[in-house]
């Protein structure tokens, strides 16, 4: 079947509209969720039909030509986003069932996923920015979805202001590129950018790193993240950590890669700040008392791994690019699975005991065995214990570091060190949940977990193990992305 690269995005846009209308006219929460799920499944089928890439669609936006391009990277990001989206929607059928206005909720989720897919598909910088905003704006509203509570609103206000100013900075960077090249098409931009004024290229690179870096949560720009992840509904936390930060990293990569021929060195900055991010994320996570906040800080650390890998790839492209890109892409996929799963577990626990305070979770894993055991898998995978999936992607990133040689080896060693440090909070959390000495009062009275919640968690556990024991399964969609990136960043 031959379908247009725009099909998955259009499907989701239409789906968002219809879901919203459906939710208003037929206010039965369960069916709204399942109705929106339908569109995600269609989008997934369309994406798999587009595999392994090729095809480009041009359309005009107020007179400007823009492109959508189906390539390995786009399909990779799309599959990750839609796949995680499907699991989260199944989960939310039960998790969100008591909230009003679910039509809006699901419609926003579909929009957000459409934006994430669009970041992959965007063939020019302007489109990239538009889809970046399409992804970002719904997420502001989603973080504050439970606006009758204080924390979500506070987190959303901080997130919104920081994120908008961040994306405007990135747009400023794009405008500088446009100012010197008059061209935004990613396929030809690098050639036109090659004779850009170096000073201006530096300014553009700095603005782009800082701008997209807010979404990726590179360290000095990360302040919104713990608040937002902690306060958002758990499904949204899973989507934010699994999709938006990964998509943000890919947006940054796409925009930075074209500045390579100008003689700037964004790679070095990314390596250094990636390392800083891992340390800060892990150190802060060590002293957290709230499970969701702890996972949020660990997301910063994990995005630090990805950012470092991207930096290695950009800076040492011919020698280290392949494994660094592979590690980064594979880690985005794995992070979506394992951190998404961990957030879903945290949400399930929160729902059954009414708090995400780690101390109150003592022994909950012995009451809700499935959630507890699943959390153990995710925590170990996040800590990079083989043969679970987190290890394999970190291993590839490290291979990229070694291939780069010199400082790359130092960077890689620091990554492994951080992996060891992260055990310092994953293991205590795991032991609190499963092997505490006593069972807390709340856990004693915990409500059972519905099947809608169990199914996605079990699927994610299976994926966690499968991607680790048989990485080829994930490399099937990662490798085309790597090929595309090598060609994109290197062949220009």
């Amino acid at each position, binding site marked *: 079947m031959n379908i247009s690269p725009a099909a998955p995005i259009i499907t989701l846009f239409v789906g968002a509209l219809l879901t919203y209308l459906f939710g208003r006219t037929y206010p039965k929460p369960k069916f709204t969720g399942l109705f929106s799920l339908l569109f995600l499944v269609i989008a997934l089928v369309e994406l798999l039909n587009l595999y392994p890439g090729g095809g480009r669609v041009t359309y005009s936006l*107020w007179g400007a030509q823009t492109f959508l391009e189906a390539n390995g990277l786009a399909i990779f990001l799309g599959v990750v986003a839609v796949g995680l989206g499907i699991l989260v929607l199944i989960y939310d059928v039960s998790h969100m069932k008591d909230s009003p206005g679910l039509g809006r909720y699901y419609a926003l989720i579909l929009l957000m996923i459409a934006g994430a897919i669009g970041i992959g598909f965007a063939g020019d910088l*302007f489109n990239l920015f538009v889809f970046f905003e399409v992804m970002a*704006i719904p997420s502001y509203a989603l973080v*504050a979805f439970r606006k009758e509570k204080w924390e979500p609103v506070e*987190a959303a206000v901080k997130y919104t202001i920081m994120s908008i100013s961040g994306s405007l900075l990135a*747009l*400023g960077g794009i405008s*500088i590129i*446009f100012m010197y090249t*008059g061209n935004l098409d990613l396929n030809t931009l690098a050639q036109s950018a090659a004779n850009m004024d170096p000073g201006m290229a530096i300014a553009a690179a700095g603005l782009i790193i800082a701008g997209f870096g807010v979404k990726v949560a590179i360290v000095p720009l990360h302040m919104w993240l713990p608040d937002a992840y902690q306060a958002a509904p758990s499904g949204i936390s899973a989507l934010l950590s699994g999709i938006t930060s990964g998509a943000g990293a890919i947006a940054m990569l796409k925009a930075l890669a074209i500045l390579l021929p100008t003689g700037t060195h964004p790679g070095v900055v990314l390596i250094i700040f990636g390392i800083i991010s891992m340390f800060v994320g892990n150190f802060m996570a060590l002293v957290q008392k709230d499970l969701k906040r702890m996972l949020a800080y660990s997301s910063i650390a994990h995005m630090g791994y990805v950012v470092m890998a991207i930096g290695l790839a950009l800076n040492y492209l011919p020698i280290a690019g392949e494994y660094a890109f592979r590690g980064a892409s594979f880690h985005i996929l794995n992070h979506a699975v394992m951190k998404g799963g961990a957030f879903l577990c945290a949400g399930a626990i929160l729902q059954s005991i009414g708090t995400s305070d780690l101390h109150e979770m003592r022994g909950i894993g012995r009451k809700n065995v499935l959630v507890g055991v699943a959390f153990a898998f995710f925590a170990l995978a996040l800590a990079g214990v083989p043969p679970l999936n987190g290890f394999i992607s970190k291993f590839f990133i490290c291979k990229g570091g070694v291939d780069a040689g010199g400082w790359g080896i130092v960077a890689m060693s620091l990554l492994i060190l951080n992996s060891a440090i992260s055990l310092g909070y994953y293991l205590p959390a795991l032991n609190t949940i499963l092997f505490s000495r006593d069972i807390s009062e709340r856990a004693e009275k915990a409500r059972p977990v519905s099947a809608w919640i169990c199914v996605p968690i079990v699927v994610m556990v299976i994926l966690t193990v499968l991607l680790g024991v048989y990485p080829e399964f994930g490399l099937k969609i990662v490798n085309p992305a790597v090929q595309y990136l090598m060609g994109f960043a290197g062949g220009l």
Partner: protein
Amino acid sequence: MNLWQLYIAAIVILLGIGIYCLISRRNLIQLIIGVEVIAKAVSLSFILAGNLQGNEQIAQAIVVTIILIEAVSTAVALSLIVAAYRHTGSLDINILKRLRG
């Protein structure tokens, strides 16, 4: 002095004002205004770019889209501010400090 240098100066000044506003103002509405000022700086920069490159069509399309996106995100931000006001009864961001550490 060229006209475009004036433009650049305007962009930089607007950007500076916006960032300063984001750092120093404690009122939520003022923060939104700061964000808007940055948005205007970026729009101006695109207009200048289109003019310099003789590619005004794209620049115009981009600026229109930026305005659209800005409108939507400002609407969302304002609705959040309303929600925050319902909780706190004030627009001061000093009160929004429950989540930290």
